């Protein structure tokens, strides 16, 4: 069975972003970019399925600028067998991402797509659900545990009230939450080996997908900043101020 793993290149989660003064968005010049953390987790799970003999091939795919090759090489070093880069603008909307991925699914015919639950830049949390809808497949989102059987996958999901377990028939989409696993690091020998693994480059055009952005971003601004607070020197002072100043006790 083939597993497809879509990976997004995003501003590294440790970076404190800066906004452009004209409100046109985030300043990405000289900013460290990395694989979206949830996608690292999805990839790790796919590689573990392969190592357990439950998957034959892990295909990593990224949609975005030329530089997306970097995260795909990392994915290959972490155990993906081959990679596909779909060259497109940065920040393609989830609906377009889902359409491009649906076209790749039609070509590659994976039985499982394992992806991140959310890109940490746009915080959309949509692409997996949309892809499932376009393909007419079932979905297991926010997964913290999966168990693969012959014709179905059991997914334990992190939901507002705790954990929910569902069974989704294959082929299926699963989106990874934080506690699905702890991803490995790429080792130097594996990084060297990854250079020889295939990385194909294509475009939405070649896949027959028209990329049309639907939302118009009018401006991107800083959120209101909180006024600096005060240091209290003791628990007694804290209690006093919460009672008499903040009025919250």
């Amino acid at each position, binding site marked *: 069975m083939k597993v497809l793993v879509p990976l997004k290149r995003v501003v590294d989660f440790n970076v*404190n*972003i800066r906004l452009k003064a004209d409100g046109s968005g985030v300043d990405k010049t000289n900013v460290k970019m990395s694989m979206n953390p*949830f996608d690292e987790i999805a990839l790790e799970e796919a590689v573990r399925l392969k190592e357990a003999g439950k998957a034959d091939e892990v295909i990593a795919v990224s949609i975005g600028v030329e530089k997306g090759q970097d995260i795909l090489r990392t994915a290959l070093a972490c155990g993906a067998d081959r990679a596909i880069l779909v060259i497109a603008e940065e920040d393609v909307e*989830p*609906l377009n991402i889902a359409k491009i991925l649906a076209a790749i699914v039609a070509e590659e015919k994976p039985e499982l797509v394992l992806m991140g*639950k*959310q890109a*940490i*830049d*746009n*915080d959309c949390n*949509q*692409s997996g*659900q*949309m*892809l*499932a*809808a*376009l393909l007419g*497949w*079932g*979905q297991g*989102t926010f997964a913290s545990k999966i168990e693969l059987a012959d014709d179905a996958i*059991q997914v334990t*999901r*992190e*939901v*507002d*009230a*705790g*954990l*929910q*377990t*569902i*069974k989704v*028939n294959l082929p299926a989409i699963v989106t990874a*939450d*934080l*506690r699905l696993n702890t991803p490995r690091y790429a080792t130097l020998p594996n990084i060297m080996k990854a250079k020889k693994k295939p990385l194909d480059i294509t475009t939405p055009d070649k896949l027959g997908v028209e990329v049309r952005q*639907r*939302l118009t*971003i009018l*401006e*991107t*601004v*800083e*959120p209101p900043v*909180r006024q600096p*607070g*005060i*240091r*209290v020197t003791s*628990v*007694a002072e*804290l*209690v006093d101020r*919460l009672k008499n100043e*903040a009025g*919250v*006790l």
Partner: protein
Amino acid sequence: MKVLLLAEHDNSVLNEATARAASAALAIGEVDVLVAGENCASVAQSAATLSGIGKVLLADSPPFANQMAEPVADLLLELSGPYDAIIAAATTNGKNILPRVAALLDVMQISEIVEVVSPDTFVRPVYAGNALQKLRSDEAKKIITVRPTAFEPVASGADAPIEDISSNVSNDKSSFVGEALTDDSRVDLATAKTVISGGRAFGSKEKFEELLFPLAQKLGAAIGASRAAVDAEFAPNDCQVGQTGKVVAPDLYIAVGISGAIQHVAGMKDARTIVAINSDEDAPIFQIADYALVADLFEAVPELTSKL
């Protein structure tokens, strides 16, 4: 504009997130509420009391029992005809179901709005809330999830009509196996007036519970946690506050032994008063705390509990 609002519930109780999402929905147009579930008539009755809504559609049928995304999305698609917008609270159900509806309708969803500027223009946080994006949607139908903490709940007291709807929607793609829900006698994190959150510094589940539970009890507070504390199993997953956990906006938020990573701050920076207790005077959490106490939590927390 006609809006269909998907109710969040557990077949017996209407979640307050719905009344909050209703505020956003009413800022967009006339609102009907859909209650999809099984044996959920009591939920429809609660929904009918939401001020300002037109009517409640009740789809009471086994495929909807567990809010599985596939059948509920199909139902919304079936009902979407007369509506210009479909809205849900950005709960795990809303997040799971609505993008599926959006793709079936070939429109882009707008996730977790915090403001309705006009019926086609919205504000939403991106980059863990480090930026606010104002955007316009020219889509024929708007599919929107709403961050509940950003809107006040609408009042109750209305008596809207309830309309039973029958649907042939079935589900051949997924099935419910079971759930392990966290003790629901706890104060609800999403709506609590006071939240006390603990971080990695507690070191063990035993210490986390021994120190935080009595304090929470005295304050009538809900328990929250950082990702590190949840990963270490000091607290269950549904306690995680942050970018990818729950977003809370209580009157009082007390962060204990939490460093204040942007991903955590994303989930609590709209609290009215923030208290941080941390032994490191340079901890980033102090940059957003109204009251900063540099102290060892193992001493400060029991002292705080005893002084209340």
